[in-house]
């Protein structure tokens, strides 16, 4: 499945999830599952928070859904369930109708304004 459009069929963890997932797998069957679960949930909460800072400029937000998926939604009631960041950006593009480009000068301006306002 494509790293960009990969959805649901999770044969492969997205590269941004690899660190936590791989450590949990490497620990083997005898390890304490809660130990890695805590790291994993913390990582997901942090990822959602960071990504929300960016998505806010597009009027979107993302929420960790029970530690298994993310729910992406806008203010008009549209929402999408996504597996990881690889699927999040295409879904956001679908909702918005245009790609979210980090090189976009307009995004830069808004992010700098946002930083000043805080």
């Amino acid at each position, binding site marked *: *499945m*494509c*790293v*960009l*459009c990969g959805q649901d069929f999770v*044969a*492969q963890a*997205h*590269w*941004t999830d*690899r*660190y936590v997932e*791989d450590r949990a*797998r*490497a620990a*083997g*069957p005898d390890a304490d599952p809660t130990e890695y679960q805590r790291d994993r949930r913390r*990582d997901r909460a*942090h*990822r959602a928070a*960071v*990504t929300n*800072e*960016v998505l806010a400029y597009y009027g979107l937000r993302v929420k960790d859904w029970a530690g298994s998926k993310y729910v992406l939604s806008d203010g008009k009631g549209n929402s999408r369930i996504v597996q990881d*960041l*690889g699927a*999040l*950006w*295409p879904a956001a*593009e679908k909702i918005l109708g245009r*790609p*979210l*480009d*980090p*090189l976009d000068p307009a*995004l*830069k301006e808004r*992010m*700098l304004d946002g*930083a000043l306002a805080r």
Partner: protein
Amino acid sequence: MPSPDKPAKRPVTIVTGFLGSGKTTLLSRVLLDPSMSDTAVLVNEFGKVGLDHHLLRRADEKTVLLGHGCVCCTTRDDLVEALLGLLDEEGRGEIAPLKGIVVETTGLADPAPILYTVFSHPVLQHHYRVDRVICTVDAVNGPLHLDRNPESTKQIAAADVVVLTKTDVSEAGLVGGLRGRVGGINPSARVLEAPFGALDPDELFGDGAADQSPSGLRPSGAVEFGDGLHVSETHSTSLTFDGPVDWTAFGTWFSMLLHARGEDVLRVKGLLDVGGSGPVLLNGVQHVIHPPDHLEEWPDEDRRSRIVFITRGIRAEEIVDSLETFSGLTGARPQPLEANLRV
């Protein structure tokens, strides 16, 4: 289930290079070395230059394009079959344990689908890893290929090691100029010369520790925005950060960039200081990102992040600017480096 005595993944080496650039000649010489006897070789065609090797297999290029996928996110079915077949034979004891696999591509092939195949196949990803991409560049016709064929630039951008072939028959001044051009496209690659197709396998498959050329992480001086020599529309951007980078935030930025501009990000390679005991080794060819490796420790004294982006049509300033904008999230500001960078 993983167990402590689980064998390491078998390294896959991809040999690419433009038509007639000397891939097969290089392989036929290197494979003569006794140390290469348990390395399997997958080729696209049995050409005129006979490769004499007992583990030689043929893999016709069969590409499966996934629905609404881009070209680099395709699976090479032939490769899957060949690699699974080798695992099978090894498991049955018909061949000695494999030390590695060498995949020779056709001259026009894009190496990204091969990487994608190995990383994404549910079985292969647990048994193989992509060790390196080697690209041969013909010292006689190389400049011509680079001028006329975008595939050639892409192949160099994807490479970890660039081998200049036919240096024995090229004009004296040409090799130096070509080295400069290759370095301009991909400053992170190691450049070797192979006159008459002869090259020590250790040099080709080693880690380049013996290579004395400067590893070149120097603070930026006169070079503006760390923009390397750029060849037509291809730019290379080398940068570091003024502190540890939040890996999660970097992942957010980079996955966003790959989604918006993935086809124009030909290559990314580097070591990122994420505040741990060692750096994260990041390596990607277009959308295809190697599983990031969180290293236990730094490979050398220099503990700074160093990362190279090779882009098409995206200027170095844009990358630096964008990372600067995101510095509130990543926790570190980008600092351009001189282009001469090897990681």
